[in-house]
């Protein structure tokens, strides 16, 4: 068996193991299904959600906010990082407040965003953007600061335009640090998207969780949890694939 195939099978095998242990526990311990449903019940709940069309409605809502928030947060974070790197005065002036915001739990801002941006998709997207923006900005700033001085000399010798210098030299050189920020941001983005849906609204996997909890539909709650976990893994994998493609030149 090739190592690639083995790696591809490792995760499903582990998940299958967990599901079997879980099933065995439910059968042997007699724990009531409203506390811990069997994996089969959870699977049925997922199928039910899928066949009734609810799955797609909620998943696409969450995924949409997540993708848009992640993309917007990444772009704004990169722009902010670039601005801080280019204008030292800006960094001196904003360094303190940024650190303050960075250490404050931004989750605490979620209720505020609901008041400011309403119960709809906007407040959820703003929350995701605010969670992604900071780690990406820091990654960009650190990356740009770490660019080899001699590469900047090269840009001057070759009389590159500011855009060429950024696009052809600084951005690729800053990419490793940028991806560190993006990884952190991607994980936070999933948390933010779900949390925003807990707070308000009637759509999304987060809403599905609060709904299932309120109505004691435990299998449905578990289904939403599983789907959220899969979504998180998918987002992280997407970042990973992008990183491996863009940084393939590294050893």
């Amino acid at each position: 068996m090739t190592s690639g195939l083995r790696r591809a099978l490792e995760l499903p095998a582990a998940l299958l193991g967990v599901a079997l242990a879980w099933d065995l526990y439910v059968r042997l311990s007699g724990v009531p299904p409203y506390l811990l449903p069997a994996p089969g019940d959870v699977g049925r709940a997922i199928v039910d959600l899928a066949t009734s069309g609810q799955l797609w409605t909620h998943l696409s809502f969450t995924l949409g906010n997540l993708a848009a928030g992640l993309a917007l947060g990444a772009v704004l974070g990169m722009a902010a990082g670039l601005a801080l790197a280019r204008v030292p005065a800006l960094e001196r002036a904003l360094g303190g407040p940024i650190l303050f915001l960075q250490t404050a739990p931004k989750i605490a801002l979620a209720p505020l965003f609901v008041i400011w941006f309403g119960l709809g998709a906007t407040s959820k997207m703003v929350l995701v953007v605010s969670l992604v923006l900071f780690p990406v900005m820091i990654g960009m700033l650190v990356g740009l600061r770490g660019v080899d001085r001699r590469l900047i000399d090269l840009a001057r010798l070759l009389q590159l335009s500011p855009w060429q210098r950024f696009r052809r030299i600084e951005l690729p050189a800053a990419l490793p640090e940028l991806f560190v920020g993006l990884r952190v941001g991607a994980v936070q983005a999933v948390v933010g998207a779900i949390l925003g849906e807990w707070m308000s609204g009637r759509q999304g996997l987060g809403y599905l969780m609060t709904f299932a909890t309120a109505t004691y539909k435990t299998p449905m709650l578990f289904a939403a949890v599983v789907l959220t976990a899969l979504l998180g893994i998918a987002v992280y994998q997407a970042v990973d694939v992008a990183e491996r493609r863009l940084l393939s030149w590294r050893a």
Partner: protein
Amino acid sequence: MIRIEGVSKTFSGPGGPVEALRPVDLTILSGSFTSIIGPSGCGKSTLLRIVAGLETASTGRIANEGEQGRPGFVFQEPVLLPWLTARENVRFPLDTSGVPRAEGDRRTDELLAMIGLSSFAQALPRTLSGGMRQRVAIARALSYDPALLLMDEPFGALDLLTRDRLNDELMAIWTATRKTIVLVTHSVEEAAYLSDTVVVMSARPGAIKRIHTVDLERPRGERTKLDPRFHQLMADLRRDLA
């Protein structure tokens, strides 16, 4: 011709201004090969960087007559873009200055053949040896056909054998193209072997101590290294440096 007139450089250090370079006057003839040697900290690299436009002189001026355009510059380390292949690194200056693709391809292939790296065109810098990387850096500096080629201790980090070979390659390039070359080095042998003129600098603050005109015949080769005049020149240079 490049006329360096009263060029000096003072850096602002933590303990006040530091004079790195006393006012320097030097004329570099078009098509000549000039070496600048001196002890560490004599400002020879600073002078080269001022000529390249990477530093601004504190006083004086540089009159550039006939060597306009982007100068070629070779750093002590190759300073390649690690995410580009050898080929892409060589053509980087062409791609960023709007040279047509076909023209860029032709020029790049010529240069890769000249430095003997045609079969490594698609290799990433990290997979190349130090000597190969420096060859790529030289080819990159030559890609846009600069009238002036500035080299800042380009072979200092290489082993002796590679260094000797690259010296001969550099001399071949100069013979074929007759570019104006200024080489900063701390190797007396390298300076004597390659140059028409050797400028000796003294340290702290840097200033020109003596200028030697080298009258060894060209083409030079292994026989030059046996010539008593070559050894006399090296002895003179070493004495000046001491």
